């Protein structure tokens, strides 16, 4: 889908369904562009980053783990912007009637998690926090769709997952939260650009403008949760109630923040954790894959996310 406007510069943006394009459009931020945007849709972060690395995409939004792995593989990427949202959506879920009461009960239990996802890190961090190691639980690597089936059938004892899946499970009353990611994970999301695009002044300028528009759109989302949830549910096929839940729990709470040292440090921690597990082949400095030129006057990455009040619990 091309967003047509005047101008000779075309920004190739990688997107996911119900992602940047939908937000910008809903917030009316796609008007009066002086460059073109060419949207490409991906199913998840990793293939999007593959496309960034292949210079097929100039910029795209991903979660907090994919850039770490991409950097670990020395992909040609630069993190250019960040947003901070509530980690309430990142949860370790257990069935309603589960005997598990707290994270430390996970010892010896099987936990479903998607390999390399933010939930993967969250699980590791949560376990570490309660004094458990990776060997103390049985990990079942499952993609969300497969994990849901296993979870509903009681084939796994717990499931570490993120929003909107969390909202979906909670909404269907099939599960409850054992632990959220609050205080455990950084709750960051990133805009990742291709260095080649940043090297082109015209494109770099467009990227700057694009980031600002996203920032404004994010504000709009916070103020119009129902309207956004409607758009989002239509885009993705999520039930409206789940979408609204999810918006209030995490999606709408995001604030645009600077890619500052704190953000880099928390990402470095993720990198080191996975490197310790030998899932990343080398130790590296995440800083090398960050471009801070668009930070401007953005607030620090530790800025608290927004909140809709008690609904976000």
């Amino acid at each position, binding site marked *: 889908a091309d967003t047509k406007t005047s101008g000779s510069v075309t920004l190739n943006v990688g997107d996911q*369904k119900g992602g940047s394009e939908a937000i910008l459009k809903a917030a009316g931020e796609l008007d009066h562009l002086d460059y073109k945007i060419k949207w490409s849709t991906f199913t998840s972060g990793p*293939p999007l980053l593959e*496309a960034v690395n292949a210079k097929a995409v100039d910029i795209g939004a991903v979660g907090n783990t994919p850039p770490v792995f991409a950097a670990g593989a020395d992909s040609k990427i630069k993190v250019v912007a960040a947003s901070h949202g509530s980690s309430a959506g990142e949860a370790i879920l257990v069935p309603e009637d589960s005997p598990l009461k707290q994270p430390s009960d996970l010892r010896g239990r099987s936990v479903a998690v998607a390999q390399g996802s933010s939930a993967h890190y969250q699980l590791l961090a949560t376990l570490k926090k309660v004094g458990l190691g990776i060997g103390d639980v049985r990990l079942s690597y499952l993609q969300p769709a497969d994990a849901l089936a296993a979870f509903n059938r009681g084939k796994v004892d717990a499931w570490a997952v993120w929003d909107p899946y969390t909202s979906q499970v909670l909404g269907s009353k099939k599960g409850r939260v054992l632990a959220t990611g609050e205080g455990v994970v950084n709750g960051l999301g990133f805009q990742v650009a291709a260095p080649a695009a940043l090297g082109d002044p015209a494109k770099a300028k467009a990227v700057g403008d694009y980031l600002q528009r996203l920032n404004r759109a994010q504000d709009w989302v916070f103020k119009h949760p129902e309207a956004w949830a409607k758009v989002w549910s239509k885009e993705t096929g999520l039930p409206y109630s789940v979408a609204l839940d999810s918006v209030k729990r995490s999606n709408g709470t995001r604030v645009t923040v600077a890619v500052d040292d704190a953000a880099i440090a928390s990402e470095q921690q993720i990198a080191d954790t996975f490197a310790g597990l030998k899932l990343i082949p080398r130790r590296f400095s995440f800083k090398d894959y960050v471009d801070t030129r668009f930070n401007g006057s953005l607030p620090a990455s530790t800025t608290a996310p927004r909140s809709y009040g008690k609904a976000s619990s």
Partner: protein
Amino acid sequence: MTVDHAPPDISAKSGAATLAAPVGPALEPVVPAASRGGRLRSVPRWLRRTVGPLVLLALWQVLSSTGVLSPDTLASPGTVARAGADLIGDGTLPSAMAISLQRVAVGLLIGGAAGITLALLSGLSRLGEDLIDATVQMLRTVPWVGLIPLFIIWLGIGEAPKVALIALGVAFHLYLNVYAGIRGVDAQLVEAGQALGLGRWGLVRHVVLPGALPGAMTGLRYSLATAWLALVFGESINADAGIGFLMNQAREFFRTDVIVVCLVVYAFLGLLADAVVRTLERLLLQWRPTFTGQ
């Protein structure tokens, strides 16, 4: 006339043998085909072939309505039909099919041409075989999923990698069956073709290719299925429409009903492919009086 001077030495008289067996063997009737199973035979083929799928459908419905198959496990046919109707109603499914169909068509064309060409090269010449066959046998086992990152690097994220994935699947499948078909052509017929003065190309056209046709038909069956299956991977790269995309997205967002609709669509495509190949076979292989079961 070669025997008249030395007739076989049959010394017994005409009746001798008869006397040795005064009681004849018990006779059994050769039952005409018309008198058995005639009624079943009169049902047209295509109708009889719907029995299996219909039985499956009925089973699904019965298990669903008796609660043996809970809605979590597998939505009931009714639910799926409703979801399907919705998808058709809002144009999602038709437009997805239209887009996917285009990709499949292009991929089939390119892959088909490549596969058949390679099969001809390696089927017809020993040198070609030495160079091509092992290479293809080697490459065809390589999984698509692993190729996607490479394809993105080589071909970008437009239509090219999607079509390339389809073409690849199609090419390998056709190659394998056409090559086997060519190598299964009766050497006596090839000889006859040579003796009739057919040149290399004439041999290919009039002897080798028709002889490889039954194999090619099996290859076509595979190819048609593979082309659609490749979409599931192809349309995970920068797609926002198509049946593969629909499936991926439904998986992404837990739309179990949509997943099942997609599976049903795929099953239907399978039936369609089968019908297409059967029709082609009826047209192209009518010369072949082969075993058709009892």
